[in-house]
């Protein structure tokens, strides 16, 4: 008998309660690792930007270690960004290292992503991988569960000093979402 409380949509007015100043900046002065920018746009089935959305990320540090409960003002690995009026979001972070996988494997560098929005009764899970990690991506146990033709939806492409990761909620080019 489950005692779980159901998920409910974020609704349109979440910024009242979920607005964190600089929540999208994961790096602090001494954070080690390659500084990167992740930018993207969340769009709906008509390719219109989704303004009432929050993108959250959870990632390891440059050594592939997660900092659960590390709240001392350093790198927590967690970021939150409310989309702007055009559905755009941006994070300042570091490129994560390779995290241990199951069966003695290592996962490709990746950022875990949740998508919360008005219109979604339950948040979505996805992952961001990196275009310049071809070899690691090819052996990643999670990426290998994704049909070849849809894998590109999870791979951020390099554009100058930023990695671009767009999220298509529905229809052609729909992002892969995971049941976690």
């Amino acid at each position, binding site marked *: 008998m489950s005692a779980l*409380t159901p998920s409910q949509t974020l609704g349109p007015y979440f910024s009242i309660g979920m607005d964190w100043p600089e929540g999208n900046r994961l790096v602090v002065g001494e954070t080690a690792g390659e500084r990167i920018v992740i930018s993207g746009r969340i769009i709906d089935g008509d390719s*219109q930007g989704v303004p009432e959305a929050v993108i959250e990320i959870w990632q390891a540090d440059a050594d592939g270690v997660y900092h659960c409960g590390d709240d001392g003002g350093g790198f*927590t690995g967690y970021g939150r960004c409310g989309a702007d009026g055009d559905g755009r979001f941006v994070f300042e972070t570091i490129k994560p290292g390779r995290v241990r996988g199951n069966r003695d494997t290592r996962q490709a560098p990746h950022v875990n992503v949740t998508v919360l929005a008005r219109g*979604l009764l339950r948040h*979505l899970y996805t992952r961001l991988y990196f275009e310049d990690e071809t070899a690691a991506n090819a052996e990643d146990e*999670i990426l290998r569960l994704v049909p070849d033709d849809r894998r590109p939806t999870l791979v951020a492409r390099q554009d100058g000093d930023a990695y671009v990761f767009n999220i298509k909620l529905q229809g052609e080019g729909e992002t892969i979402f*995971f*049941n976690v």
Partner: protein
Amino acid sequence: MIRVYPSVPDGVYPDNDYPAYRSSEKRAPFEAAITIPHTASEITGPRFGREKLREGAQDLTRQVPDGTAQGQRIIVFGRVTDDRNRPERGALIELWQANAAGRYRHDGDTHDAPLDPYFIGTGQVVTNEEGYYEFTTIEPGAYPWPNHHNAWRPKHIHFSLFGPAWATRLVTQMYFPGDPTLPLDPIFMGTADESARKRMISVFDIDRSVPDYAMAYRFDIGIRGADEMPWEDEA
């Protein structure tokens, strides 16, 4: 050992494909989500506690100097546990809600109801060692929304919490007992399982109500709990 969070049973969380909720029409994915095994990425998660608390965040009736919020003052409390009844300790919960007239302090809310200069509608609490939280606020009003003709959102308070892992993230809404709009609300009704829906309705508690001050409502929250499993390469 690795923690594994069993899948949420069908119907206990809503499906995004729920046409009665019109905002889902262009936003719910068409493709089925791909089930993945849990790795370190899913069984770890951010942990926030007291360090995130803003001063006065546990009393939403007194967040503006020189006045108090209008409306029915209430105490909301409850316990956060996983579905095996283990308490979620020292965990941040974020809250937001409409004012007593059913209006949010947000530029996007154009409902013709008064703003209350003494009510912001944002709160935060941290659970104690037994998983309990408590805050003081006013009972939010119901409000109309454009989902369908004569649509009214039931009175509700938004809750956001993390749980111990990325897999346990939960954003939900607390409702009030006896609200006649609940069976008409597609957001509430989007959860197929009736007993699960009932867990989103708070319970009036006379014993926790404070005489001459505030009525109390209890809202317990159940998050996903984990089994301990050997790593596959240790099995």
